[in-house]
């Protein structure tokens, strides 16, 4: 069933590149950008699993799901009003 894994990997790659392109658009607001980078790390985790690395996938899932998002949004909520730069 390696064709199935191949197709899943291709789909994940497309979605990851799309989310990464959203994440660096200059016009988007900051919460959406941070959300997109979270989406990239989430899909990277599934990609690691397809590459037969469940340890790495679990690390990325545990760290990328909650902790990174919280750090970014916390700092963002403290610097409200300063993101015009």
């Amino acid at each position, binding site marked *: 069933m390696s064709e199935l894994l191949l197709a899943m990997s291709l789909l994940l790659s497309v979605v990851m590149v799309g989310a990464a392109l959203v994440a660096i658009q200059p016009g988007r607001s900051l919460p959406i950008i941070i959300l997109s980078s979270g989406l990239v790390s989430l899909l990277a985790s599934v990609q690691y699993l397809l590459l037969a690395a*469940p*340890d790495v*996938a*679990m*690390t990325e899932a*545990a*760290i990328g*799901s*909650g*902790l990174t998002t*919280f*750090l970014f949004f*916390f*700092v963002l909520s*403290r610097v409200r009003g300063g993101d015009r730069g």
Partner: protein
Amino acid sequence: MVRHLFVLLLLTALGTLFFALQAGFSPDSELNQVGRYYASHTAQDLGAANIVTAIIVTYRGLDTLGEVTVLFLASTIIGMVLSKGMQKGGKVSDLPPAGELLSTGSRLLVPLILLLGCYVFINGHLTPGGGFQGGAILASAALMLLLADPLRPFNSRFIAVVESTSGLLYVVIGVLGIFVAGGFLDNRILPLGSYGTIFSAGAIPIIYTLIGLKVGAEFSSMLLKLSKTEER
């Protein structure tokens, strides 16, 4: 813009390099020498079923010690950078309440998350996972508590004690390996046990538990230091 032109030039150069790398890459069909050694010797020598765990804890254990130290330094520097604005007393905040569902859900879910973290790092030598993943999951439990009640007083002294104790025990076990077994951080200071059960692989479960507690305490203290800073 001139600046953007330079950036595009740099990216073109990097892209060409990456394209050359990608075009010249041909995946191996056989394990190389190091990989074959790990694959064939880990189960008999160390008794661990998860070869990645065996590499992290035993074969490259010194790297892991350095890495935990790097995390400790990062946590300490965050504390130093943010120490000026630390909140002193329990100031009444104007945040909207978290809601009944979230506080009840956190009471239900925090023990589950802690239990999953302990499962992950105790079973690190049999299933995927281990100290780093388990530590991140423990820190997620702290994050859940923090979300349910941002003003909850945390016992940061307890976290500091857990972190220092587990780090100290990690080094002590490593030094014990020099005297009892083959070298620093050797896991054969305990009997290997029967392969595939939870009490096997010598000291790997103990070392990974200590790493998990230390990493969890470091991440939790990072989160707490950031969230207790009140300076608008």
